[in-house]
């Protein structure tokens, strides 16, 4: 018997997906996370897997895992004490960032305090020119002095980020060599190694975050490896990455920055798998948890990628699945301002104390409490029997708002839901306009604990005709990790005018990237299966200050066909911005290569469609569209493919509750997904 396990550790719950490769059966469940003892929830989960499904550790042949250790280290500022070495006269790179303030209307707006404060930034005399040539050689004595100073300050690690190091890494390498001789106990992180992009702030902050979390993440992964081995799990653990792929935990110990935002990315990978399987080309995934909602677009079955995602207060610039985070979740707090206007968020009760109805001491009304008052939740256990509903607490909390608004309890609760949805509408509208897509051609794929609860309301506002709720919406990130491919990104900044002369440089650099990529996959990752390479380049018109990534065909690169490369860029520019200029000069800024080693995928079978309507478990009373009404309650486990029902209805399952308003037709598709179509 061979089992594959995907684990995703979140703030409140740790999710498990267990896949039996022989029977194609997929199980899921949650345990409470133990942020104080990271890793112990994994052990607890494995014990439960054995108890529940009889899966022995020795039968686990594949193990993937997403963790928040990295992100928490940044948010709680518990990383190591770093010193940063920069080129002389550029020591304020982290202080200045890119100047723009978080809240430009506010006279007191501030940028976050950098993870390396200015007193721990040291400089060395050296200079690489924009073309990579050495303008001023590095002064070794100067480097030794800087390192001595770092040591005197009690540095626990050194980040080196020199001007134009993406182009010529020699000086950064030199500093590393000297450091390894002079201070062998200090880990050294080079910007040219971590992620060698042009733009000094972006490269520096990415390297700083990598160094800041590295020892803690490495320690955590080491103890996880050890614990799994002790339990007898034969699989080498893999960790999920921000780029939607996985890599070995061993590599994760050094390439930490790649895995800090992995949970959200894995969720989108899971969502895109499910959408593709269900035959949906374009969808928006909506993952609503306790404190935030993560929205991502899946176009033509593919997640979208970007850089500049934020971790805590800081951006990082490694390739990541593009996810927009909205400050609205099940725990968002409702309040009434001085003029009697109802607001929801941005403050959140989070997971601790959480919504009032969770009975953990929360007293302020949240979105989840509003759903409880309306009667949508509380019909069964919440979160795999981990939480019991305290309706009295919810009533008290919503009551405070109700008396301020002069409305009834239920009317107030529904108002909170509507205001929350309008806030979500505003944020999603931005994303839609930023990308220029038409929401009417998109399905909404809802997951996370609170996603299916809010999905139909949000879809109605956004004009999205179809909502899809997967089988296990509460554990999609764990599922995503389970099916993610082994994947790594490589980049080379070339900054060329795209013409005949450039073609040779492009070919040469791609060949080098390819060698590095294959080495990573075969040697470092020790992968033996099938692999593929994806070529792309960041290009722009001369004079523009921003690039767009354009997919390239390997044959164009090999044939040196710059006209085809340019033409692909013009098409892409047209698609993204609505105009292009085929006569204008084109520049190639970065070459990118992605290597993908395919991981085994569950081979789910279509299930036969049964006919007919579903029988409700019972009829419950909910408050919906301004009135109390009887609606049927269905149990998700009892819904068979092919069966249909119509809204209003409530569907109950272990990890979430789906609310279906009137005017929706529901059906279960051949993969077991709930498909809700607006009439």
């Amino acid at each position, binding site marked *: 018997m061979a089992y594959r396990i995907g684990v995703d550790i979140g703030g409140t719950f740790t999710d498990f997906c267990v896949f039996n490769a022989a029977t194609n059966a997929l199980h899921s469940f949650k345990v409470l996370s133990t942020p104080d003892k990271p890793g112990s929830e994994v052990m607890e989960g494995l014990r439960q897997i054995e108890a529940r499904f009889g899966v022995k550790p020795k039968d686990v042949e594949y193990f993937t895992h997403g963790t928040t250790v990295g992100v928490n280290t940044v948010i709680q500022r518990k990383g190591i004490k770093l010193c940063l070495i920069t080129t002389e006269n550029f020591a304020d790179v982290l202080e200045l960032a890119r*100047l723009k303030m978080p809240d430009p*209307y506010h*006279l007191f707006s501030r940028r976050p305090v950098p993870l390396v404060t200015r007193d721990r930034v040291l400089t060395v005399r050296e200079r690489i020119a924009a073309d990579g040539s050495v303008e001023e050689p590095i002064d070794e004595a100067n480097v030794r002095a800087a390192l001595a100073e770092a040591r005197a300050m009690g540095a626990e690690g050194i980040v080196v980020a020199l001007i134009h190091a993406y182009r010529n890494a020699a000086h950064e390498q030199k500093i590393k060599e000297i450091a390894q001789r002079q201070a062998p106990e200090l880990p050294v992180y080079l910007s040219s190694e971590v992620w060698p992009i042009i733009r000094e702030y972006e490269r520096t902050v990415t390297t700083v975050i990598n160094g800041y979390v590295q020892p803690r993440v490495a320690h955590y992964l080491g103890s996880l490896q050890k614990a799994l081995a002790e339990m007898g799990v034969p699989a080498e653990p893999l960790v999920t990455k921000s780029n939607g792929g996985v890599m070995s935990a061993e590599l994760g110990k050094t390439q930490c920055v790649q895995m800090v935002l992995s949970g959200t990315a894995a969720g989108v990978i899971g969502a895109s798998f499910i959408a593709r399987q269900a035959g949906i080309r374009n969808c928006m995934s909506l993952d609503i948890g306790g404190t935030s909602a993560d929205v991502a677009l899946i176009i033509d079955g593919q997640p979208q990628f970007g850089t500049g995602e934020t971790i805590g207060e800081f951006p990082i610039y490694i390739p990541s699945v593009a996810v927009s985070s909205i400050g609205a979740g099940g725990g968002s707090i409702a309040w009434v301002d001085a003029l009697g206007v*109802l607001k929801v968020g941005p403050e959140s009760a989070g997971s601790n104390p959480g919504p009032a109805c969770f009975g953990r001491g929360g007293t302020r009304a949240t979105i989840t409490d509003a759903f409880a008052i309306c009667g949508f939740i509380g019909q069964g256990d919440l979160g795999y029997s981990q939480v019991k509903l305290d309706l009295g607490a919810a009533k008290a909390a919503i009551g405070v708002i109700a008396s301020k608004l002069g409305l009834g309890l239920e009317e107030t609760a529904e108002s909170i839901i509507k205001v929350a949805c309008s806030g979500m509408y*505003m944020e999603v509208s931005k994303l839609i306009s930023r990308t220029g897509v038409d929401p009417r051609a998109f399905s909404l794929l809802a997951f996370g604990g609170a996603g299916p609860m809010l999905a139909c309301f949000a879809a109605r506002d956004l004009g999205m005709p179809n909502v899809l709720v997967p089988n296990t919406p509460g554990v999609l990130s764990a599922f995503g990790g389970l099916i993610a491919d082994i994947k790594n990104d490589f980049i080379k900044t070339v900054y060329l005018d795209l013409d005949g002369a450039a073609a040779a440089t492009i070919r040469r650099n791609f060949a080098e990237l390819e060698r590095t990529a294959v080495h990573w996959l075969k040697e470092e990752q020790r992968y033996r299966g099938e692999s593929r390479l994806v070529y792309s380049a960041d290009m722009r018109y001369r004079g523009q200050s921003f690039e767009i990534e354009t997919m390239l065909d390997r044959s164009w690169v090999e044939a040196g066909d710059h006209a085809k490369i340019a033409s692909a860029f013009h098409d892409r520019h047209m698609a993204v911005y609505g105009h292009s200029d085929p006569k204008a000069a084109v520049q190639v800024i970065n070459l990118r290569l992605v290597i993908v080693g395919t991981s085994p995928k569950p081979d789910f079978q279509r299930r036969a469609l049964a006919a007919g309507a579903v029988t409700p478990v019972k009829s419950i009373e909910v408050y919906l569209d301004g009135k109390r009404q009887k609606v049927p309650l269905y149990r998700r486990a009892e819904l068979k493919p092919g069966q249909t029902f119509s809204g209003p209805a409530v569907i109950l399952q272990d990890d979430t509750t789906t609310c279906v308003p009137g005017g929706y037709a529901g059906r279960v598709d051949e993969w077991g997904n709930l498909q809700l179509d607006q009439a």
Partner: protein
Amino acid sequence: MPIDKVTLQILANHCAAATESMAYTLFRTAHSTFVKETEDFTTGLTTPEGLTFASPKDLGATWFVGLDYGDAIRMVDSYRPGDLCLTNDPYSGYACTHSPDIHLWKPIFWKDELVCYSVGHIHNTDVGGAVPASLSRTLVEVHQEGIRVPPSKLYNEGRLNDELVRVMMTNVRVPEQNWGDLKAQIAAMNTGERKVHEMIERFGIETFRQGMGDLLDYSEQQTRNLIRTIPDGDYFFADYMDEDAAGGVPCRIAITLRVKGDELVLDYTGSDPQLTSSLNMPTGGKERHILPMVGLVYVFYTLDPTILLNSGMMRPARAILPEGTVVNPKFPAAVGMRSLTCMRVQDTTFGCFARALPDRMPACPSGGGPMMNVKTTDNRTGRTVMASIDPVLGGAGGSPHADGSDGSGANSSFLKNTPVEINEVEVPVKILRYGLAQDSGGPGKHRGGLASSLEFKVFAPNTTITARNRDRSHFAAWGAGGGKASAPSVFALNPGTNHEVNLENTDIFTVEPGDVILMTCSGAGGWGDPLERPADAVLHDVKCSFISAAAALRDYGVVIVDGKVDERQTESRRAAMRKEAKPADRQAFFDYGPERSGFERIWTLANYDALTAILKTLPVNWRFFVKRKIFDAVGRMQGGERRGDGSEVRQAFDRILKEYPQLQAQAAE
């Protein structure tokens, strides 16, 4: 009847979504790099009367919240579905404030009834005129500032007005860029229309129509509640631009803030006469024109960040803008560089509020920093390169609760810099240093934010440097609450060499290969007595190189020995400094720095009042001329003649009257 408070919030969110979508559409489809880099554009929705009831917060310039399109809208006779109008004339309707800003508005109809307008503008890099980019401090009439289109139809019932477009594009330097950006603006207007139609379908026309007014009322009510927390009274403050024209004398902005109950007035009486340069702010004297109100928007939002950003927040306020002054010039005064004046107007507004709310407002933010533009030749390719290399910004003033942010902040918060590495790859210059300027922030219990500083070298002959909005080379950013003024701005050619040139407020000049240019804007003012700053905080600033050890000793009285605070020496040094300070300085709430204090020993309040009183009586075309004459005369007076009570100004004017008999006749009228 007003709509209910739940629906109001939902409508507010949907309106915000509409304007954010307009902004993102514009941003995504705009052609020029300038738009993408500086985000100098706006989008919004207005009532049929032209009052903005919704504006975006994510993207765009922060200056035009609550812009009133009413007069511009009314200059077009009638509206039909499919119409789209345009203006960039700062003297027609006073929505547009200088010619590069092309404003559009589109009437939105529902069943043949005009419901509202989608509106917005883009700052175009060039709209023709005497100089590239259309703006220069040296221009003296608006005709030199490019083609001007009065409110006109760009689309007539869906048909493009080709002739208008042809005339515009014939008169500008890079027509394809203007046209590309115009298309992005049109797309944004149409997005606004679609979103409004969706809202009407969702909320119903009655709720939507009522809701627009309710959103204005909501913001108004929030603002009135806020004004009630400000003590009633008159609060006067004045600040200066270094020069009223290239190589000129200072130009004063004076505001008396009058707060009464839940309303307030910004009275600009006492501000300088209109200028023979392009620093004038075209307001038409409209009492709720946005330019004299920008500072208010910042203050209101800072005091209550939940305030809805729309025209309603202007209703409890009005401005008094005497005609023929720098804040209400008569046609055809040039107005292109009104942004420099508007920055100083904001500083002055902050000063009034610092008097009114000493425990809630910050000291003066940094100023005088330009957008550095370079036009040079790439020696490798022979290609001409024209590029904007960085905005040189500075930080926020210290506040009653914290230090000011460094490098950018307060009202200089929405611009981004360009990475050093991108600049060096794109432009054939070498950046020698880019960072924070040590000791530039005003000392205080809460230190003023530091300036940023940029030093670079050029390699080709005939390289042109443009540094628009240069100021604060003389008059620094003031400190408040006992905090000290900042260091002034520094603009130097070949600093530290024997051929160093102090460029002061020069905004355009030519340099040669090997020349080095250093630009540091002013820092921001400090807040609170520097001697009360914890010695550890001073030490940390020294370790961070934000201040020098010399400044720690001089400004803060902190003695640092071997990287540690010497507590005993510090204590005695601070005690000595307290003793030495003049009682007047100790009690002063504001500190203006040595240059301004020196200037005001001659130009006392009474003298300046006398000047303003005299100029007010003169025909507008004489005012600037006479101001300069009086400045000359007073400047030449000897110590004994100076009384500072206004009499020397009147004396000087009497002599001028004798010299110019034709003026005597005019003045008598």
